[in-house]
């Protein structure tokens, strides 16, 4: 259980490749023998990979382009 707690604390760093070699080796060995922690690790990987697809601007409902421009224009005239 203590090993699982330690492993869980290190999963993001392992996933991001920023873990020291010794710690990375220890976690990988733990994951090989622990389905619970390995399941969490795989889930985190899915979340991170999916998150990167959100950077795309496609698929969002955008405000009206002209309407928003008009609002900016009103504000801009207030600035000057």
């Amino acid at each position, binding site marked *: 259980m203590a090993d699982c707690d330690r492993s869980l604390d290190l999963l993001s760093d392992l996933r991001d490749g920023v873990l020291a070699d010794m710690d990375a080796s220890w976690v990988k060995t733990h994951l090989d023998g622990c389905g619970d922690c390995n399941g969490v690790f795989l*889930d985190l990987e899915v979340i991170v990979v999916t998150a990167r697809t959100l*950077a795309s601007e496609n698929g969002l409902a955008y405000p009206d382009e002209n309407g928003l421009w008009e609002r900016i224009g009103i504000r801009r005239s207030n600035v000057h």
Partner: protein
Amino acid sequence: MGAGAEVEITGPSDFELTQKAAGGDTDAFEQIYRRHYRRVYALSLRMLSDPTMAEDMTQEVFVNLFTKIGSFRGESQFTTWLHRMTVNQVLMYFRKASTRSELTTDEGETPVQIVRGTEDPGRMPVVDRIGLENAIRQLPLGYRTVFVLHDVEGYDHDEIARTLEISQGTSKSQLHKARLKLRGLIRQQSAG
């Protein structure tokens, strides 16, 4: 750094337009707006998780951009510069709203508990973009900010630490807790 989907640019470059806009050419500024407002809105929406606030923020960013566009020297991509300006403006909003403590602390969140023997690698559903977006909206502000900057927008911990004025350790910790929290939220969504 992720800056979203690239928009095919025809006509004058962003830098050329910024130069004209800095000289008072509002048509050039309007072209800049039409090229990039989606990018600004999308980033604002992900950080604020509220369409109305994101629209207001987009307006504020472009008002601010108009006053500062002369300071863009073309030393970086305009999109990167605008991206950073947007992030800073959202963070300024958070601070004005007295939510800064939520951005800088690890406290106040129940640690994510994993009960040994209850985990099933197959239990988290295949998460799609909508499911993840919904879960992100439910994250506490500090978690959400770090997660969006790192995992969506591609900032590294050093950039996040400088931007949010927190330590890199706090950034890493917030990110890890955010991911675990998202995992739990996604599982809840599927169970509901």
